[in-house]
């Protein structure tokens, strides 16, 4: 469900774009090469998986430099979106992202929740537009919209 705000312990296969407050535990499968942005920040696409499936994580700066494949990570207050038609999860400043172990976790690389999916991307875009409109309406109207 898009826009949910209660903390959810989520198996990766149940992820959908537009979720917030995600609590996940996963093992790192593969760490992509960093891309440097205009503001000299580094971002990496990291494939992470749990027992239920695999998803792409977008990881910025220092943690991406230290992380190794095989690391087991616990993450909280993450959120999901779409990036180039692929579902992607992100960390937040106030969320936790910690290594809790290595190697000893069962995972499945299928289903890959980050397979390019134009339909899903389109649906997400539509919902994002609606969500932003709702927020704008609430701000200006002062009452609860929709």
């Amino acid at each position: 469900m898009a826009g949910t705000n209660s903390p959810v312990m989520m198996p990766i296969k149940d992820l959908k774009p537009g979720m917030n407050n995600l609590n996940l535990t996963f093992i790192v499968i593969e760490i992509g090469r960093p891309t440097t942005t205009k503001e000299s920040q580094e971002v990496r696409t990291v494939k992470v998986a749990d027992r239920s499936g695999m998803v792409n994580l977008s990881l910025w700066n220092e943690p991406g430099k230290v992380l190794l494949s095989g690391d087991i990570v616990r993450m909280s207050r993450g959120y999901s979106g779409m990036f180039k038609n692929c579902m992607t999860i992100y960390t937040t400043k106030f969320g936790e992202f910690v290594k809790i172990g290595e190697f000893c976790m069962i995972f499945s690389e299928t289903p890959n929740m980050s397979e390019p999916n134009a339909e899903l991307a389109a649906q997400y875009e539509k919902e994002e537009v609606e969500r932003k409109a709702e927020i704008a309406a609430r701000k200006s109207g002062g009452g609860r919209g929709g």
Partner: protein
Amino acid sequence: MDKRDKRVAIPSRLFLHTLLDCKDEQEDKYESCYQALVQSIQGKGDKEISDSLHMEAMKSHENICTGLLVGILTEPNNCIKFYSYLSFVANDGLNFVVSEMNRLLLEKFNIMKETVQQQLIWLVRELVRNGVPGADWVCWNVMRNIIGGNTSNRNLWLADQMMNIYTDSRVWLYTMPHLVSGVIYTYLRLLEDHARHNLKELKDKEVSFLTQLIRERFSDVLSIGRDFVRLLQTVSRIPEIEQVWQEILHSPSSLSPQFTGVEQLMRTRTPRKYLVSRITPDMEKKLNFLTQNVKFGFHTRYEAWFQRSHLSSQESQSLRPDLVRFIVSVIHPSNDLLQSDVMPRWAVIGWILTTCTNPVASSNVKLALFYDWIFFDLASDSIMNLEPAVLVMHHSMKPHPQITATLLDFLSRLVNNFLPSSSDQVLLCVTAAFQHVQEKGVLPLLTPLLFNKNINQGLRKSLMRIFQSLYLMENPPVEKPTPVQEYSIIHPIPTVQFSDDEDDSENENLMINETRNNGLTSNGEAKNDNINENLMINETRNNGLTSNGE
């Protein structure tokens, strides 16, 4: 998006943390106990301190011991004082502190700061000097952190430090026979690494340390059993070690009146704890996970991670035989596990074998794989120590025939060359091992593996000659079908001319064997591709029963 992550590694008194680590509850507890200790004794004179400590101990014995332990580990200038406080305040013979040290050694040693590791070894020395109960197992756990195939400074330092502790407390050491055996096993193994890398001073010190221990405590060598011989042979080019080897071979009673000769050692299965001791707790955890939880077919990533963490350097290749001995002798999966789709041991062995590029290590890996075959004894050896080798050879036949061939070739040479003076015995034992493999249903028939038509002619002929008795057992030279009889190994074996043109009689005999085996397999079929279904190992095995109650 998370920009400009200002994260830094959390400060820690004891451990080196990366910025991805979080402090666990245990570490928080350590810190609070330490702070409480510091507060309670700060600025006080001796009498007041002693009163304070007593009061703290009454509040919580565990907390005061924890605080003092942290103090010892983190304040080199005050550790002597803290140790004396500990002796004063502990009412459990230091049992709590000893168990905390064991926990740290088994779970946290490799992330400890260098100074903390040094202090921990200082404390180990104090425990030994004071004869504290449990100090022997603390020493054992320290040795588990001396990594095989690793000549980093820290590793060498650790080996040297422990050797000094043992040398300085030899009398104490000699009251702990199991520890003496563990020390001999550990240092004999480390000698291989130190000799190969020209660490002359350390090597000479170890040689002298070891030879003295071996000679003075040969009864503790006998407890180790066959893997002592394996390790000794690896370093027998060192003159002093060669001398010990010659004494073992030619004048055993000079080493110990109870010692009858090398066969006595070879017939003693090495207790698991020694084989476990040469694997770090981390490696042990991973190998157990791999063979208990990971589905076969989903194992590739785990192998890559293990390789990267533990087998990536040239020198670490000497670890491979230790891994094989551990897998063969220590990991004995339950029947449920064997019949499941979890990664089988033979596949782990196959990976260790095929990713080994160093020819010396490769040869030692094969030896480690077959080591329990050489003097196999039905009374004391287990089918579980034979199963991995057989299944690696069997399962490699189609996809990687060169692996099967190289292992069969190695085994055939081993029979003749391992101990030329006992090659008859070795042949009997290896033959008995194969028979046991067949009886237990690991392979319903040996012929498709041992005398496979697809292996090179020279090797096949050699195998048929060496394992004549096995060949005849499954392919008796008669025209009409008769019940196959097990040939006793002392039954006189008729000489037979083997021709390559034996298809018909072989097929008849195969049919007979399948019929005979139907009564013994769990599902009535002899499928070569799913050997695990035919595996008969169960808990009643040790009572001399097979799973169909015979």
